[in-house]
């Protein structure tokens, strides 16, 4: 069953066409990877899905519902969660508060109830804390750092906290922008394991952008390759790897090499 569908996404900044008729559909519960060389438009696709960029034309449907023109906060409330390539945690807060912030859109407490606190706001906060502790902190193995300010954490841990924050949003679709960039082999393995567990145990659909081709080919169900804002091919990891256009985009052609040498 299709959960997320993008049709003919076009995006340009001034005269620069960043996305050119990008169309794809993501099934419920799959891991869908988007790969391509630098500047191919991968992050722009995620930004369109999340609502940070507004495409020039084209439609995005989540579960059959047209979300093309909704604001980012509305899309977040509908279950679109996002992690960032350059960590975008809130540096002034502790790990726990950062994760709690992910739950923002399904909490109810208003301004007055918050100022009064005792009563409904307190009950809601305690429920939230228990849920985060049981499900997320335990799952991602970050018990030891929950009270620390995020700015004091190592890079790999910060990425993990960012994943925790996205999970607290109770997402249906998780958009991950280079989750293992800059990580060592061990941290990469941990992250790959978390991503697979999130798919299997939580049933969350994951769209992932990553340059670590080995990890992408290992964990994703389907892969879309983009270059210069255009889709080259979409298919299983095996079929994508042997696609001549993909090899051309990544390795170049014999002619180009010959031309470079002469």
């Amino acid at each position, binding site marked *: 069953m299709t959960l997320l569908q993008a049709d003919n996404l076009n995006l340009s900044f001034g005269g620069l066409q960043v996305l050119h008729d990008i169309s794809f559909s993501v099934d419920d519960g799959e891991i869908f990877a988007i790969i391509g060389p630098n500047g191919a438009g991968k992050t722009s696709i995620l930004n369109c899905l999340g609502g940070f960029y507004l495409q020039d034309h084209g439609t995005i449907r989540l579960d059959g519902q047209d979300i093309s023109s909704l604001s980012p*906060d509305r899309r977040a409330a509908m279950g679109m969660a996002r992690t960032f390539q350059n960590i975008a945690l809130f540096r002034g807060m502790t790990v726990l508060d950062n994760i709690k912030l992910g739950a*923002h859109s399904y909490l109810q407490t*208003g301004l007055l109830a918050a100022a009064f606190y005792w009563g409904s*706001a307190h009950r809601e906060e305690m429920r939230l804390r228990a849920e985060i502790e049981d499900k997320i902190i335990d799952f991602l193995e970050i018990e030891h750092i929950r009270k620390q300010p995020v700015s004091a954490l190592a890079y790999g841990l910060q990425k993990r906290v960012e994943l925790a924050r996205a999970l607290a949003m109770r997402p249906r679709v998780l958009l991950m922008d280079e989750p293992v960039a800059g990580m060592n082999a061990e941290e990469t393995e941990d992250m790959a394991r978390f991503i697979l567990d999130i798919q299997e145990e939580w049933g969350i659909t994951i769209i992932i952008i990553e340059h670590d081709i080995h990890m992408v080919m290992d964990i994703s169900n389907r892969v879309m390759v983009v270059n210069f804002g255009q889709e080259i091919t979409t298919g299983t990891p095996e079929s994508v790897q042997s696609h001549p256009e993909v090899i051309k985009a990544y390795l170049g052609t014999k002619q180009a090499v010959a031309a470079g040498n002469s």
Partner: protein
Amino acid sequence: MRIGDFKETYAADEAVFRSTTSRFWLGVLFVLLLIFPFIASDYLLYMANLTGIAIVAAIGLNILTGAAGQISLGHAGFVGIGAYTSAVLTNHLGLPFLICLPLAGLMSAFFGILVGAPSMRMKGLYLCITTLAAQVIFEFIFVHWESVTGGIRGLNVPPPSIFGLKIDGEFGFYWLVLPVIILTATAARNLFRTRVGRAFIAIRDRDISAELMGINLFRYKLYAFASSSFIAGMAGCLWVSHLKTITPEHFPLHESIRYLAMIIVGGLGNILGSIFGAIFMTLIPEVLQTALKFFEQFKPEAMAYLYPLQTVVFGLLIVVFLVFEPHGLAEIWCRIKNYFRLWPFKH
């Protein structure tokens, strides 16, 4: 010393004062605050009341500027609106203090939302200039809307009454300020234990990712403006009840900047910081003056040079603080607490 202090419930872990030790010292502070007016002189009580009003106003500004990151140069204007509202309500309708207090807050909050509305399109320095414009406009209205504000001559108000009881003098007023401080500080602290306060800090730290986390930026910026100016309005009501007179000169731009200085010296985004900052900015000039008076006994002829010097010393103190303690007095307090947490051990 607090060792072996384990929590068994999430509620206990999320409490503001988590250990028995800190609750004990809070109790001691409370008792001292209750005893203070009975032993203090009228001058000390007057200073305490002034400080109290500044604390309330500074807590308000710290929500908007310290936590939500929207720099405001119009805070004195909002205090002024609360003060004038309260003065007019008392003079024309004879309303008692306890009704004036929230109404003054609501009026300020209304103008706070108006001033905050441009935050939909502007941020940072541009929004700061909008609040500067608001400050100038408020001052203009205070001076020129003579039929209501009394122009530059201002208004006189009777002493506040509460349950038919006239509160006159510093001793009585102390009992009005103290509960208002406790209530505002508690409410402000509570705000930051829930999603509202977290949203404020998220907007300050990274507004783009805050929006992608599902926070409606515009709504929460307006919340910040509204709650901050509501508290400012209450501070204004306290102000006019204390001085019993009000003129536009009480709420100039440099008063707004003084509030900013309070929260920066005290600690941005920190309720305790607002309290420390307000105390520092109100009491240090007085302390310096007292010190000068003391010196005057020995060398009266040097005073012509020394009197202007106290402003310089005051400014220097602020600069020194910012250089050595950029996170404010609250950070020093934090370090002291951490030291005593494991005392007498080091680790």
